[in-house]
């Protein structure tokens, strides 16, 4: 038998990745097991073999988390005004928004509203990773501030699920300002004595981590989530050193003292309910 030619593939290709045949099977990026898709979905989008938490959309997360049909969305139709008139390459920011609206089925990267978890009322804000990488622009900032106002008015706990690549470049300094804006709102909320539970999911980086996500009274992380300020690639490029194993994961953040606890997706509901019970005044 002829000697098999060595593969020249170096792990990087400009061609679009070949998709799996639609539907049935999926591959876990962590343990590389082939998994039956419906089995994964039944398991709350967690790999049954290695407990890898897949990224899930905001709607799915709300579905998993809240009591049936209890989520009442507010400000659902708030849309960005494209303050800079941002154009890049051959496309525009507006076009990107339209594409991602189709892709994710949401109008912005955050959903807010009132919901119940195990019968406990709360204000919930969930970020949508499929909408421009869940980045924080003016609308996300405004929605989060609205959620804080609601929580203050109704004296309910606030739970925020962060899932974001950071500030939205397409809105320039406006999106940078949202960091200050959301932090100021959190300061007010803190002064009013409300409970703020911040849940960090994969990924939480950049401007979101450096503002409201790290200001929680209680900070929970999902296992294996990427959490950090600068992205791992930026760090590797800047300091030109190979990054250590497990750098910027939820476990790493726990070890260095920036996260209170790591909670599996299946326990999230009961854990949040428990915390709300404990923190009642």
């Amino acid at each position: 038998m002829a000697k098999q030619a060595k593969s020249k593939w170096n792990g990087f290709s400009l061609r679009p990745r070949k998709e799996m045949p639609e539907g049935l099977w999926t591959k876990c990026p962590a343990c590389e097991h082939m998994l039956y898709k419906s089995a994964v979905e039944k398991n709350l989008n967690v790999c049954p073999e290695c407990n890898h938490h897949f990224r899930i959309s905001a709607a799915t997360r709300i579905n998993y988390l809240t009591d049936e049909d209890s989520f009442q969305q507010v400000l659902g139709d708030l849309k960005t005004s494209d303050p800079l008139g941002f154009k890049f390459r051959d496309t525009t920011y507006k076009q990107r928004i339209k594409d991602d609206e189709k892709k994710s089925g949401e109008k912005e990267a955050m959903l807010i509203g009132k919901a119940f978890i195990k019968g406990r009322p709360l204000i919930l804000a969930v970020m949508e990773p499929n909408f421009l990488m869940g980045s924080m622009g003016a609308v996300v900032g405004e929605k989060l501030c609205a959620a804080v106002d609601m929580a203050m008015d109704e004296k309910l706990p606030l739970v925020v699920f962060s899932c974001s690549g950071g500030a939205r470049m397409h809105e320039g300094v406006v999106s940078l300002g949202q960091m200050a804006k959301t932090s100021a709102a959190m300061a007010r909320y803190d002064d009013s004595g409300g409970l703020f539970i911040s849940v960090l999911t994969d990924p939480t980086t950049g401007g979101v981590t450096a503002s409201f996500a790290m200001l929680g009274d209680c900070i929970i992380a999902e296992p294996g989530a990427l959490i950090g300020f600068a992205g791992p690639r930026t760090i590797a490029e800047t300091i030109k050193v190979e990054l250590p194993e497990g750098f910027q994961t939820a476990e790493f953040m726990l070890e260095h003292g920036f996260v209170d606890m790591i909670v599996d997706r299946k326990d999230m509901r009961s854990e949040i309910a428990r915390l709300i019970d404990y923190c009642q005044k």
Partner: protein
Amino acid sequence: MPDRANKINSGDHLDFEQKVADLDRQMNELRKLSSIKGIDYSSEIRQLQKEQVNELKRIYSNLTAWQTVQVARHPKRPLLSDYLDLMVKDFREFHGDRCFGDDRAIVTGLGQIGRDRVFVVGQNKGRNTKEKVVCNFGCPNPEGYRKALIKMKFAEKYGIPVVTLIDTPGAYPGIGAEERGQAQAIAANLQEMSRLRVPIICICIGEGGSGGALGIGVGDRLVMLEFAYYSVISPEGCAAILWRDGSQAPHAAEALKLTSKDLLKLELVDAVIPEPLGGAHRNVHDTVYNVEKYIVKTLRDLKRTKVDNLLENRYWKLRSIGVSPAERLRRKTLAGRERIKAAIDKIHTKPKPVPAKV
């Protein structure tokens, strides 16, 4: 004392200042000739100088965004140390974050500007290579932000207004910085600065790079020098992500609207402090004087405001970032209406004066 005249040498010209450089060279040649041969060329030199001034006016009146970034990064641009030397009298530096160490990229201390005592927090880049390494090229680590916070709390305790001078390419992205919680340090600063009970003036004197700049940049006023830039991401970084090519930075700079002119139009900065002809690096004294004048004037206004009103104004200033002008106006009217209503209620609920017994 270092040389403050800031002579622009032949190597200091930016690439779009070719004609200015040529004129400089011609003038130098004429000067040399006149000293060697003893011929008086002063009228020619004056003519050339006039031409140069016109040329500088022409170039600097319409800089592109990328050219502005280059001016903001000019190696001779006045740094924090220049401002401390020329503007702040009796500066006493405060070191250390009482926890991990002393970050040299952020300098904090007490001093006097005009007649006011102020607490200065600033980012320092360093002039020569040795200083630059010590200051980590102006990229603060978490301990720098924690130092800034702890010292600002100290200033709050004694009612000393805070002045922050922003000049950083961004917070340092390193392994140690992540381990010590860069994100948490910045987040805590944003939260605490938004409710610090003393006036805060933030001035972007050079580069305003992303979260690193914002970490000491939340206050009652955010102002910029004319050719400073303030951006959510460095133009190079933005180009690398959206254009997939770092060399497209000029396009990215244009799209990000990071110049003082654009940001003033978007109402994201409160004022722009003018720079002398040809940029701050051509005349350090005038630049520092303009900044000082602004600080003194603004402090007078802010000190007159009651602390509660100051905080309320600061909060609503932050809350209205990114809100459309129409919505902002609506909120203002709403707030105004509420205030009037509250005032009327106060009048009505006032107990009627009891008539004195006769």
